[in-house]
């Protein structure tokens, strides 16, 4: 099989899985064995195909992307859009992450969702998500990429509102979808600009002609990149469109791991990395990307400090880590952004699945005693180290990885991002500020992760005396994928080991052809020697301080179960309520919009103009005609005869003439 068959297979397998599972969901929703076999099987098949694609590329690294054409989609005059896939080094990395982490999460879902009546539907959606995610990372033109972009949004909506019987879950799905629409508007406008400037929407054409067609730092390239970035803020949950991601935790936990941590939310980072030439040509946009990223990283981390829902902490952590990735790609350190994307996929998927295993245990314990406590509230946990030792140790690995303790994966990628921002600071001092914000965010990250670990696994247990007997470790089908992810989180750094530990920077060389044109436009030196080691030592010291402080502060004060805990006050309350941003958006955007829709659009335009003038007005005019016309119908034969005669004479006159 050659590479185009393999790529086709990697996408076709999940499509088949979706169709089969969708049919089963409609016809045989209880055939769970078959559903698991199909749902997980196609993903492992796709992963195998991706590995084969990667091997082919490894043997013969292509200089230009390999294009796999399927069919012509929009042949309209000069606009020729083909449904085609583009395989290059960056796509291959994304392909492996999506199918690899996806396979593990599918496997975990078999255990996590076993009892759910919507089992088949769940796997159908999950397979469909993988299809669209692959289309997103493989699309060879902006419209095809956009199909994937919208498709993952749809699947995200479907899976956030998976338990739609509860209104809050359905609302969270709607919120995610609508906020993403705001971003998608930016993406669309960017596409229009690109079409105006290049007369093509093909990725290869646009990116290769960018330096000759557009003026560096000009208004056009700045507008294109800023609108693209608006799309990214929606999909990747950055300020100001980040509020949907924490709410998206309403979905099943494996969904949070796959869609809202490892893959979909990183689509924005992928997009910036993919169009790196454009961003490198627009320094203003690059600083906006880096600034928003750094601000989001810091801001979301502060909110994560005071959340009690275990998944909310991880959600804000994800927002914060995505901010890191944007800081990287905004600084021109595209490889670091993709590197962090990969390692983050490992350790954040591990964290989410680990939290899923904890929630699973608590849910069953409360279910067994018919208690209605919140199984996601960390105040109801504590001391789970004894009941769930495997999950505990895996979570420790993930925590060390995200905090940036060497030699875990997160250390290398985070360090490279900070080094990248620092290096850019030499040319543009604003990046020193972003670097400082990133450093502070690293401290907070270590702190809230230590707090999460301490609240969940250490100290005395607060679940309840009756429930404690029912707490137990998750089955192997759930801990198995966790073990693999833990291994990747621990050793994932090897894919891009820096020179100072004797590494060959594998990922950097691998991605060289993709980022060459972008990097050629940026001139700054990577810190070497003493400066580099100082930066690393500082980052590690900060991570250690954060972890130690997190454990000491959390374990140092007594903690009560959620039911008895006193309410937060002062700044802690502000953090717990997420700076009241949801309330602010509600007051500034949602309510005025709803008011406008109700008063002007509904009462005014719809009921007034459309119903009143158009619909009822037409009826009124016809009735008036009828009223006048019916006056002619006297019922008197004489009148009819007169009219008849007049008509006959009139015709006669016309005929004779």
């Amino acid at each position, binding site marked *: 099989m050659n590479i185009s068959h393999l790529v086709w297979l990697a996408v076709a397998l999940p499509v088949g899985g979706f169709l089969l599972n969708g049919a089963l969901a409609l016809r045989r929703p209880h055939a769970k064995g078959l559903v698991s076999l199909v749902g997980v099987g196609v993903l492992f098949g796709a992963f195998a195909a991706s590995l084969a694609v990667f091997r082919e590329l490894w043997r013969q690294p292509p200089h230009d992307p390999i294009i796999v054409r399927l069919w012509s989609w929009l042949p309209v005059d000069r606009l020729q859009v083909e449904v085609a896939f583009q395989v290059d080094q960056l796509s291959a990395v994304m392909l492996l992450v999506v199918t690899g982490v996806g396979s593990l999460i599918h496997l975990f879902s078999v255990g996590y969702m076993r009892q759910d009546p919507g089992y088949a539907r769940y796997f159908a959606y999950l397979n469909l998500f993988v299809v669209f995610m692959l289309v997103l990372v493989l699309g060879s033109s902006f419209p095809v990429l956009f199909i994937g972009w919208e498709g993952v949004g749809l699947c995200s909506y479907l899976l956030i509102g998976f338990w739609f019987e509860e209104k809050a879950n359905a609302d969270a799905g709607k919120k995610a979808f609508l906020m993403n629409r705001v971003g998608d508007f930016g993406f669309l406008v960017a596409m229009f600009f690109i079409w105006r400037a290049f007369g093509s929407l093909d990725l290869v054409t646009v990116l290769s002609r960018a330096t000759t067609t557009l003026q560096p730092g000009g208004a056009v390239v700045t507008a294109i990149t800023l609108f693209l970035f608006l799309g990214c803020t929606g999909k990747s949950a950055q300020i100001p469109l980040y509020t949907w991601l924490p709410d998206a935790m309403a979905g099943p936990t494996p969904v949070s791991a796959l869609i809202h941590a490892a893959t979909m939310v990183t689509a924005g980072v992928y997009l910036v990395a993919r169009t790196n030439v454009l961003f490198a040509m627009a320094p203003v946009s690059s600083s906006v990307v880096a600034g928003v990223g750094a601000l989001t990283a810091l801001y979301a981390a502060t909110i994560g400090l005071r959340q009690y829902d275990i998944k909310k902490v991880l959600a804000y952590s994800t927002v914060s880590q995505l901010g890191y990735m944007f800081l990287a790609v905004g600084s021109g350190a595209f490889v670091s952004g993709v590197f962090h994307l990969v390692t983050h996929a490992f350790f954040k998927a591990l964290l989410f699945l680990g939290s899923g295993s904890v929630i699973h245990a608590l849910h069953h314990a409360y279910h067994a005693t018919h208690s209605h406590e919140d199984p996601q509230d960390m105040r109801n946990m504590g001391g789970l180290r004894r009941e769930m030792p495997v999950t505990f140790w895996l979570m420790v690995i993930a925590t060390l990885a995200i905090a940036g303790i060497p030699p875990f994966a997160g250390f290398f990628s985070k360090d490279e991002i900070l080094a990248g921002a620092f290096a850019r600071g030499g040319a543009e001092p604003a990046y020193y500020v972003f670097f400082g914000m990133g450093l502070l965010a690293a401290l907070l990250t270590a702190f809230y992760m230590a707090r999460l670990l301490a609240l969940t696994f250490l100290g005395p247990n607060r679940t309840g005396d009756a429930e404690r007997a029912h707490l137990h470790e998750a089955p192997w089908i759930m801990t198995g994928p966790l073990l693999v992810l833990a291994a990747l989180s621990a050793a994932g750094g090897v894919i891009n080991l820096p020179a100072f530990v004797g590494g060959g920077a594998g990922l950097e060389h691998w991605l060289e052809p993709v980022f060459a044109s972008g990097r050629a436009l940026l001139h700054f030196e990577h810190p070497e020697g003493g400066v580099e080691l100082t930066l690393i030592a500082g980052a590690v010291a900060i991570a250690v301080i954060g972890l130690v402080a997190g454990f000491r502060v959390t374990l140092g004060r007594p903690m009560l179960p959620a039911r008895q805990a006193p309410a937060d006050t002062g700044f802690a309350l502000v953090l717990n309520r997420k700076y009241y941003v949801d309330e602010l958006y509600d007051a500034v955007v949602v309510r005025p919009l709803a008011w406008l829709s109700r008063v002007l659009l509904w009462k005014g335009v719809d009921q007034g103009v459309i119903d009143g003038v158009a619909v009822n007005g037409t009826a009124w005019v016809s009735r008036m005609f009828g009223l006048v016309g*019916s006056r*002619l*119908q*006297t*019922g*008197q*034969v*004489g009148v009819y*005869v007169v009219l008849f*005669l007049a008509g006959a004479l009139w015709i006669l006159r016309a005929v004779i003439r």
Partner: protein
Amino acid sequence: MFLGPSLGLSAILFSLGVAGVLLRRNAIVLFMCIELMLNAVNLTFVALGQLYGANAYVMVFFVMTVAAAEAVVGLAIILGVFRHRQSVDLQNINLLQG
């Protein structure tokens, strides 16, 4: 032969018929006025037969047949109306008023 006077007579008869239909209110009289118009047209056909030959005379027979059929249907309707209303005055028959 007598073409002018014949057409003139039929025009007068036809006009009389029209005037009767327009002015009279009794259904029977109205009906007879319609017959008058039909026969005025017949006279026209006969007179023009001198010029057009057999075609015109054939039309006369058609008209007479239709007139006979019309007389049957028309008189039956008038009879029916009279049974309902005890009157054949058209002023009173206005069921089709809009």
